[in-house]
């Protein structure tokens, strides 16, 4: 029974046949025994799943597995006392861990073997040359000097067809293998020289290969090298390499990854899609900007591309028409058209109104670029924006997916490994500054201490009532926070409302709202951070998450109110076309209310104001675009002021080192706060993109400047956060939040497009009543078909079918995941058994070696193995071994009455254990 099991396993070992034959002439007999050993450490990873399933799967087979174990012990025992010494050698030499060996041997064999032994979870299996090496080791062949070692590896590699194959694949594989070899460079060089020599001789021997093949080879090699060199060059000159390095040196990778994620910009993403580099949100911002920009070039070729019609398309008539139209339109705006006021930079109004910055400037026109090339601005506008969102979405979703998979799913199966993570990956090797190193020491100390505390706490079972109290405290705090948010939303609404109704001759008035909002968004999160400390979240990470969630809610409330407000202004069903006094009708506010709690008073407030002075700006999209512009700019200015303030504060407190809370708050670089700031900017960008199509450019500029400012203050003034920053998981959360904000923005747009009424400006001005109606114009000619398609898609049967398919897919994915988890469990269990086995055998050999253990009775031993007539040579051993491994053949030894070794053995063993 047992023999069958192991036979299958051994067959699984991919051996390099050629070498095996060639080298194993003398001690071929041993190899089986050696192979048996291989099972535990090397080939465990490569056992095919079906084998394991077949023998150790859950449904009752586990029993079988355990049943087989004793008989294995039996085998070992019999072997063990035939030749204790040799077994020990065979068993422990290749692994070379438990038993100390001569130094050079460990280096020669142990090192090399272990590099490749386990590739859990990766697809890579040990290659043939490597198996050859293992086979040699198991045979007890090991090099004594370095040259021999090199020769041996070279020999083995030459025997490996995959490595020596005469094409680019072979070359690349060889390169990778050499790189991954854990040998000093000197050895690698030697090895490489040998292999190249061998290869070239090989090639010259096979000179007759066709010219074409050779040409193909050299071309692909050349192409590969070219790509490689381009990639390397880009890597070398990647943006801000030096700066990032400096930051990482002083602050560690956490802060470094903040800068990396947040700020890496344009050229990198386009030039090379390195998987390691997070294609971060701002990268995509840049990318989309480039799409916008670059599409100008190809506008003539592509109908659906450009959103900036009049910048460089040579159509003077269009431009002039446009400015005419603008003149007509902008009679209502508060400054003169052509003049550029100093304040315009801040307010984004005035002169900017008629630039391409805003939605309202784009026209509802189509024209011929060249003859026969129809260029339709609404379509272009719509599709470019759509394309931008799709690119954003794909990039971020991809990133979130990868991060989530790496950092959550794969880990959740082993929740226990927290300490390991803390200890083995906590030191940041990129630290170069003394200060940073000290801080790191302290933060690791704190973290370990906290973790220990947590474990101690976990052991104390909390009683029911304290849990209830804990939960209710959290609940109350959540209610408070939500009310606060509601109030804030209401307040900002009122502010907007009063803004609009004021006489807006003064530009400064426009700045009040964005100033206040930005202040809220900058400072309220710190309040949240304070509040969360009182709520009794025990785990630091939960605190961070809760604060994050609240901050995001805050941002969404503020932005939602902003968009909602302007949207409500727009959806008033006033049919008049040109000069629309928007805020006149009152019963609209009932259904359009978008803020949560406080519609009651707020409506009455509206009603009172409804009679106020009329709003005189009829292009609400442009106004909204302006708001976004202002928010972006003011945010930038406030950030600047904050930095300046910090700097001054630093200078002021430089002499007397007070260690107050304020001090800490200001001078500590809080990664989560800063990242949230970036996300806020990103959200602004997404929410504003439709109304302010050039906002990516603004964000790009802003973030570039911010990078340098941040870098300066980080390096010169601030000190790193003492709290541990677990980059991997928190990064995932941040990206997930970004994704959420993107989705919300898109949903908002969907609503506006499908439900909102068009105003009298912008590319969609003549498509009544909704924005999306211009799409019907495109498809006017074949409206029928589209209607048919849509009605078909919306049929219940089809919908049900799609849902069904989705369900099936989800089910499949889920059961696959479960299967994998189960497989992991089974393998782990097996591993445990193996290990127990090994420890047990080790003990046994030790005992035999010391002669402490008396074999139960000589007669039984004789029954187990052929009587040792002379000295116990390898033959007996081999016979036993071949019995073990040969499939179901019954060996003569087996036909003897079955020895009762296990019971004897277990008895004596247990006795032993009790006595010791």
């Amino acid at each position, binding site marked *: 029974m047992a023999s069958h099991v192991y036979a299958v396993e051994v067959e699984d070992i991919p051996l390099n046949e050629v070498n095996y034959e060639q080298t194993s002439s003398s001690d071929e007999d041993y190899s089986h025994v050696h192979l048996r050993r291989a099972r535990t450490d090397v080939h465990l990873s490569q056992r095919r799943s079906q084998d394991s399933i077949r023998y150790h799967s859950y449904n009752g087979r586990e029993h079988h597995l355990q049943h087989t174990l004793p008989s294995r012990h039996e085998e070992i025992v019999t072997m063990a006392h035939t030749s204790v010494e040799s077994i020990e050698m065979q068993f422990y030499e290749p692994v070379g861990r438990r038993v100390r060996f001569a130094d050079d041997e460990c280096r020669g064999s142990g090192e090399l073997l272990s590099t490749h032994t386990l590739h859990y979870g990766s697809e890579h299996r040990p290659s043939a040359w490597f198996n050859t090496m293992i086979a040699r080791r198991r045979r007890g062949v090991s090099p004594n000097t370095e040259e021999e070692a090199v020769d041996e590896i070279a020999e083995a590699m030459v025997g490996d067809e995959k490595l020596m194959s005469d094409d680019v694949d072979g070359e690349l594989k060889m390169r990778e293998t*050499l790189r991954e070899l854990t040998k000093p460079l000197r*050895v690698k060089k030697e090895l490489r020289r040998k292999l190249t020599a061998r290869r070239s001789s090989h090639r010259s021997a096979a000179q007759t290969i066709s010219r074409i093949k050779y040409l193909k080879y050299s071309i692909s090699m050349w192409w590969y090298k070219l790509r490689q060199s381009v990639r390397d*060059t880009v890597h*070398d000159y990647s943006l801000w390499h030096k700066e990032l390095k400096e930051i990482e040196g002083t602050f560690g990778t956490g802060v470094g990854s903040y800068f990396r994620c947040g700020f890496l910009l344009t050229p990198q993403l386009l030039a090379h899609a390195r998987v390691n580099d997070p294609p971060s949100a701002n990268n995509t911002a840049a990318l989309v900007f480039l799409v916008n920009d670059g599409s100008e070039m190809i506008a003539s070729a592509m109908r659906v591309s450009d959103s900036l019609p009049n910048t460089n398309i040579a159509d003077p008539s269009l431009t002039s028409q446009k400015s005419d139209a603008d003149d007509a339109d902008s009679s209502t705006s508060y400054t003169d058209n052509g003049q550029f006021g100093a304040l315009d930079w801040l307010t984004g109004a005035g002169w900017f109104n008629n630039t391409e910055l805003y939605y309202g400037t784009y026209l509802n026109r189509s024209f011929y670029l060249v003859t026969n090339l129809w260029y339709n601005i609404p379509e272009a506008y719509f599709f470019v924006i759509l394309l931008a969102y799709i690119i954003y979405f794909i990039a971020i979703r991809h990133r979130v997916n990868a991060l989530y998979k790496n950092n959550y799913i794969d880990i959740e199966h082993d929740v226990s490994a927290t300490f390991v993570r803390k200890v*083995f990956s906590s030191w940041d090797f990129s630290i170069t500054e003394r200060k940073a190193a000290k801080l790191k020491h302290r933060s690791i100390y704190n973290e370990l201490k906290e973790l220990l505390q947590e474990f101690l706490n976990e052991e104390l079972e909390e009683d029911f009532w304290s849990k209830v109290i804990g939960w209710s405290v959290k609940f109350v705090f959540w209610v408070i926070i939500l009310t606060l948010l509601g109030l804030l939303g209401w307040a900002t609404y009122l502010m907007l409302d009063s803004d609009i109704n004021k006489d807006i001759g003064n530009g400064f008035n426009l700045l009040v709202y964005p100033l206040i909002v930005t202040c809220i968004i900058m400072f309220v999160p710190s309040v949240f951070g304070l509040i969360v400390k009182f709520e009794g979240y025990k785990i630091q990470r939960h605190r961070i998450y809760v604060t994050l969630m609240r901050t995001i809610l805050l941002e969404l409330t503020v932005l939602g109110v902003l968009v909602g407000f302007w949207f409500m202004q727009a959806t008033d069903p006033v049919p008049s076309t040109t000069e629309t006094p928007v805020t006149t009708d009152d019963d609209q506010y009932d259904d359009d209310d978008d803020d949560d709690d406080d519609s009651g008073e707020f409506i009455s407030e509206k009603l009172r104001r409804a009679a106020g002075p009329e709003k005189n700006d009829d292009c609400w999209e442009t106004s909204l675009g302006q708001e976004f512009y202002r928010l972006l700019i003011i945010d930038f200015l406030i950030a600047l002021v904050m930095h300046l303030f910090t700097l001054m504060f630093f200078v002021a407190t430089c002499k007397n080192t007070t260690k107050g809370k304020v001090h800490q708050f200001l001078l500590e670089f809080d990664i989560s706060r800063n990242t949230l700031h970036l996300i806020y900017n990103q959200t602004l960008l997404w929410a504003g993109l439709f109304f302010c199509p050039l906002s990516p450019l603004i964000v790009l500029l802003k973030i570039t400047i911010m990078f340098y400012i941040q870098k300066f203050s980080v390096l010169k003034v601030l000190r790193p956060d003492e709290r541990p920053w677990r980059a991997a998981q928190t990064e995932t959360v941040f990206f997930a939040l970004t994704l959420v904000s993107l989705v919300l923005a898109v949903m908002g747009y969907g609503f506006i497009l499908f439900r909102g009424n068009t105003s009298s400006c912008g590319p969609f001005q003549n498509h009544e009543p909704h924005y999306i109606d211009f799409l019907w114009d495109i498809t006017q000619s074949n409206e029928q078909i589209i209607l048919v398609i849509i009605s078909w898609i919306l049929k219940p049967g089809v919908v049900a079918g799609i849902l069904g398919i989705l369900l099936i897919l989800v089910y499949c994915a889920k059961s696959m995941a479960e299967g994998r988890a189960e497989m992991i469990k089974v393998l782990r269990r097996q591993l445990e058994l193996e290990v127990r086995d090994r420890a047990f055998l080790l003990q046994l050999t030790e005992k035999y070696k010391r002669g402490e253990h008396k074999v139960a009775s000589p007669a039984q031993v004789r029954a187990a193995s052929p009587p040792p007539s002379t000295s116990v040579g390898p033959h007996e051993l081999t016979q036993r071994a071949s019995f073990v491994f040969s499939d179901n053949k019954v060996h003569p030894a087996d036909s003897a009455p079955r020895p009762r070794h296990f019971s004897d053995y277990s008895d004596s063993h247990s006795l032993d254990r009790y006595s010791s």
Partner: protein
Amino acid sequence: MGNSKSCFSEEELQDYEDLTYLTRKEILLAWSRWMELVQCQDSSNKSARYPDKVIHQLPELKHNPFCERITRVFSSEHDSRMSFEDFLDLLSVMSDKAPLQLKAFYAFHIFDFNEDKSLDRDDLGLVVDKLTGDSGLLPEEKEKLVDKLLEETDLDGGGISEEEFKHLLTKCPDFIHSFRFSI
């Protein structure tokens, strides 16, 4: 760095490029850093070996609690002296492009203070000591921590073996981010 290119033959550079995870520019940069470090004008001898005291002056190693182990592990003669090629080896392993398995191999040997091919209690205790620096944990805390660590990882009681260690690190997504530096 201007004339550092002339210190290498084309063949040498190609060798280094193929055998490490570094780019050509990084290799040249490494050379100039190396020359700064050892302060020796003799640019022809690349296999000259320098004692670890000199190597530890490198800012990346200066404050690293494991710097002695690093020089020891990466020294090709295992005598803590390093040559330029050993230095390149170090940089290659620490570069972003090196695979996890390779990094894990070296990390294991760095943490294996008594060089018995397994991380046992003594090793782990030392690792924790080095990590926490001056403000070390109390002995009993350390004891408990090591217990926990072994409980989580070690299956057979003899310490964490290399395979176990590598397997563990596949589950630490942070490791590959922390075990790296560039010059």
